[in-house]
């Protein structure tokens, strides 16, 4: 399947943190041809297993996205919300949203706050066009979540879309699963839940899988914008990031070296990824049970968590190629 076709399906599927049912269904259909067994655990994690000999190798991408959760419906019909994951009021103002049942709305700014530089998330509300609480409640109830609307497109070798974090990673795992010919491992593809609210889903999933090696595939920052503060080391288009560290993990150097060697041998473009803050599933995997070899394949991404994120399609390609080659290469540890 072409990258854009895959991303189209994945970024449009509904799955804010805690409400991942829609995206789970989409991924189940996409990954099913390449695995032997699929199950969903207590936290909603989707665990796809390709049975094999040898050590257990876990690839993880989170399927949840940031989003908004309705907490209160005002008598005038406005919706107040809580944020799921890290969002800023500046990023989301005036953005269109859509609920799982198709109800649409816009994130609105109170008139007296329009010029406010310290605009807070709590100042904002969602307008679904309802004239009263009763009318709004016919479509949306407290507890319902919504996500950004958006239509992905490709231009200049880049993909512009909502929720590349981390549907790009999901796409990479699905594509890698398709390509893997001779796996050297008992292979698991984990599509985890609730990453955006604190890597919560991956913890129990990793406990259940009990892997020897865990590699998280997620987006990372991109150090190529005007005014860069050198927060991260990777840039768009230079290849798959091999995680060295982020705010949640320092990857074991032997594993980083192995990943780099495999990439070099297969002539896959890679870059060393170092992120000063922010975390990924890799951090949670590493400290599971008696400890796990933890690494990451990182996809540089601009404007993470904003309604439109940008990645380079060539980086996705490199990430999928690397994941597939890793699954076909032995790792000896130390």
């Amino acid at each position, binding site marked *: 399947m072409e990258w854009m076709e895959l991303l189209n399906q994945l970024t449009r599927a509904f799955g804010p943190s805690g409400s991942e049912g829609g995206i789970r269904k989409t991924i189940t259909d996409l990954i099913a041809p390449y695995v032997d067994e699929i199950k969903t655990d207590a936290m909603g994690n989707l665990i796809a297993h390709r049975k094999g000999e040898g050590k257990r190798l876990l690839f993880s991408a989170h399927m949840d996205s940031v989003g908004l959760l309705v907490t209160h419906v005002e008598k005038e019909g406005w919706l107040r919300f809580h944020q799921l994951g890290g969002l800023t009021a500046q990023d989301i103002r005036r953005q269109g949203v859509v609920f799982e049942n198709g109800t649409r709305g816009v994130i609105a700014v109170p008139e007296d706050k329009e010029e406010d530089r310290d605009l807070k998330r709590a100042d904002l509300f969602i307008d679904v066009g309802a004239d009263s609480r009763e009318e709004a409640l016919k479509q949306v109830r*407290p*507890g319902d979540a919504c996500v950004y609307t958006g239509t992905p497109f490709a231009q200049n070798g880049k993909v512009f879309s909502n929720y590349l974090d981390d549907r790009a990673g999901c796409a990479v795992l699905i594509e890698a699963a398709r390509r893997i010919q001779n796996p050297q491992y008992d292979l698991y593809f984990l599509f985890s839940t609730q990453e955006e609210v604190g890597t919560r889903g991956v913890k129990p*999933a990793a*406990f259940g899988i009990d892997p020897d090696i865990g590699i998280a595939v997620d987006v990372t920052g991109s150090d190529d914008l005007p005014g860069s503060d050198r927060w991260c080391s990777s840039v768009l288009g230079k290849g798959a990031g091999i995680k060295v560290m982020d705010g949640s993990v320092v990857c074991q150097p032997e594993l980083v070296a192995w990943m780099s060697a495999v990439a070099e041998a297969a002539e896959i473009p890679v870059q060393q990824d170092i992120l000063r803050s922010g975390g990924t599933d890799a951090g949670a995997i590493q400290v599971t049970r008696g400890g796990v070899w933890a690494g990451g394949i990182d996809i540089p991404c601009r404007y993470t968590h904003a309604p439109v994120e940008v990645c380079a399609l060539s980086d996705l390609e490199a990430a999928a190629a690397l994941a597939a080659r890793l699954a076909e290469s032995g790792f000896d540890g130390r």
Partner: protein
Amino acid sequence: MLNLLKQLCALSGVSSWEDEVRDFIRAKAEPYADSIRMDTIGNLIVFKKGKKPTGNKLLLSAHMDEVGLMVKRVEEDGTLRFDTVGGIDRRILIGKTVYVGQSHLPGIIGSKPIHLTSRDERRQAPKLDKLYLDIGARDQAEAERYVRPGDIITFGPEWQEFGNGLLKAKAIDDRVGCAVMLKLLEEELPLDCNFVFSCQEEVGTRGAFGYSFALRPEIAMILEGTTAADLPGVREDQKVCVPGDGPVISLVDGGTMYDRELFETLRDLADAHGIPWQVKRMVAGGTDARTIQRSRAGVRVTGLSDAVRYIHSPSSVAAISDLDSILKLARLFLQRVAEEA
């Protein structure tokens, strides 16, 4: 239920000193339980068989402990310095009567008289190190005959019913959950249940690590008290929850996104049986669920909470009508889990 809650709230049970509460609950639970044990950290685990032999499938949990204070130092003048155990707003402490140690020695929390304070000091709530506890001792030697550093301090147990169906007490968080579980224990249950009366919730859901790991539940329901903010000057959508508006069905709080299907089950059960319900309008606080959910390979968590104004203070306020609603909805939930087991 009201009388039971009154008895429970009167007991002293600051985190890790839950003995009084545990002893009371053990005595109440004994006639109905199939087994009772205390684990190493102090959780009381009560197992009761139901019609369906579902084993460890369902766990219900409420914490026994409450927030309080601890004596840090006895000063030369016989006054005591203290620290908080659990989240306490220091603005509420001045002038309160509190009780020290196992003998419940009364004392008053004092601070500098107003005519000695500077303008700046009057503008902000005094820091903990400016507050002291006066137990009426003449000097250090006399005070040390009665108290020692490490003694715990609890709020006064005065219970009051007032206004339109409201009650006031300390420790409604979470004796209300304990009361609901004790009432359920008296009934014939549709399935096997582990009832955990947990400890050290207020200092970081610490009791939950052990019992959730040991009991391996599939589903856990947490019965709690949660913060209400239906106060003058608070915007409608920031009131969090409102006493009298029914059980708060857990969906998201500071520590957990609860299981969505179980949330919808509870919401639909409430609607079908005419029980009012609410969700928290602002996301704050946390419960044992945050620890249980991520225990081992994961647990489906859900919860019902009582909306409590002035939570973590000696004058916590709840609505009497909510108590029965919580019990009713919890009972319906057990029924539903049993049907689907």
